[in-house]
């Protein structure tokens, strides 16, 4: 049985009984969709973000750095990408993470694996994928995101581009002692609660607007309307989706609900996946910030490799799952 079934009953009751909208009309479809998705997404956000931040309280970045500085090539890339999943990533934390890793002796390739996985596979994107696309697509997204992170890191590691990192990154400087106390369970749950509240406060408006526009499209735009422009047969759909996704980072929470509906209207799944990965994984503000610690050339190499990986993933899934 679908665990979201009770929410559907609630959404039906609200739409048809409380609001008195006649079943079967376009308006009923849109309103029902909006209520159902909004409740479902917020429940998932609560549960998943809370669980992820609880796990994270055991693995702060300082600890991850120590683990990664002892790992060899390849295995280090895999581990870095996996650890990237549970780490939150905002553009303002990119630099401290990057410098902290290098300074502790984590190889450049491993650092990049982490830098790719961390924003691309984040808990908000996961919730939205799980809630709006189902677990199969969510898993596909995680698996291909991991593959891109691992492979990009290995390639960058092999390119021997350490000279493109600003020199001061390798100079350690010691200002004080680090003695973060171990947290007890109350502190862990407090941390998880605060973090969950923070994230929901930050994204709820995007989620609601995204689902709102999505609901309107769901109810009023004919199915397969977009297949002509963005179906799997259109070769330019994937690269175009990636380019459009780059400047949209801050709105990932609002973009994914929209993409969910666009898929329903004929955009092929590979193109949608590529678009979402570009939104989360390639971020213009992050590139600008990274300029402080690396040469533009390295940022271009980084963006280029990740971008190619995303485009390849898009074509691959259009090919395998194309309709």
């Amino acid at each position, binding site marked *: 049985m679908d665990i979201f079934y009770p929410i559907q009953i609630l959404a039906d009751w609200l739409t048809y009984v409380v609001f008195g909208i006649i079943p079967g009309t376009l308006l009923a479809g849109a309103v029902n969709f909006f209520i159902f998705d909004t409740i479902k997404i917020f429940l998932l956000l609560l549960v998943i973000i809370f669980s992820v931040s609880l796990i994270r309280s055991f693995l702060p970045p300082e600890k991850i750095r120590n683990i990664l500085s002892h790992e060899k090539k390849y295995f280090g890339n895999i581990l870095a990408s996996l650890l990237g999943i549970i780490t939150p990533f905002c553009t303002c934390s990119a630099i*401290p993470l990057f410098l902290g890793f290098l300074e502790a002796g984590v190889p450049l390739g491993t650092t990049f694996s982490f830098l790719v996985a961390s924003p691309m596979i984040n808990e908000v994107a996961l919730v939205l994928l799980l809630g709006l696309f189902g677990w199969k697509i969510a898993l596909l997204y995680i698996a291909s995101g991991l593959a891109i992170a691992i492979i990009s890191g290995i390639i960058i590691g092999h390119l021997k581009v350490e000279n493109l990192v600003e020199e001061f990154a390798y100079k350690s400087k*010691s200002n004080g002692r680090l003695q973060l106390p171990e947290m007890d369970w109350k502190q862990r749950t407090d941390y998880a609660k605060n973090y969950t509240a923070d994230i929901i406060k930050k994204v709820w408006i995007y989620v609601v607007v995204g689902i709102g526009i999505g609901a309107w499209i769901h109810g009023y735009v004919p199915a397969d309307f977009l297949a002509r422009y963005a179906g799997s047969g259109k070769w330019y759909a994937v690269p175009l989706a990636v380019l459009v996704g780059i400047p949209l980072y801050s709105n990932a929470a609002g973009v994914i609900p929209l993409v969910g509906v666009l898929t329903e209207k004929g955009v092929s799944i590979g193109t949608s996946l590529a678009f979402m990965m570009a939104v989360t994984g390639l971020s213009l503000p992050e590139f600008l910030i990274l300029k402080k610690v690396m040469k533009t050339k390295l940022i271009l190499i980084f963006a280029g490799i990740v971008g190619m990986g995303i485009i390849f993933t898009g074509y691959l899934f259009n090919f395998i799952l194309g309709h």
Partner: protein
Amino acid sequence: MDIKILGTGCPNCQRLEQNTKQALEELKIEAVVEKVTDIQDIIGYGIMSTPALVVDGNVLLAGMVPSVNDIKEKIENYIK
């Protein structure tokens, strides 16, 4: 007491600064609260997530913005 707030100026850092100042006021502790925004200096403390609170050279917390009460507790524990 020498207190430093480490952070590159994101909204969280400002919230940590406000909460810390209020905690100090409620504890009636006279202290200089200084902001450290230079990324190299921040990394020098061994932390990787901002904002962070440093008291007399000791990092008491990193990567989160605790409530005023939590900060009071941490500072009191540190003094002991």
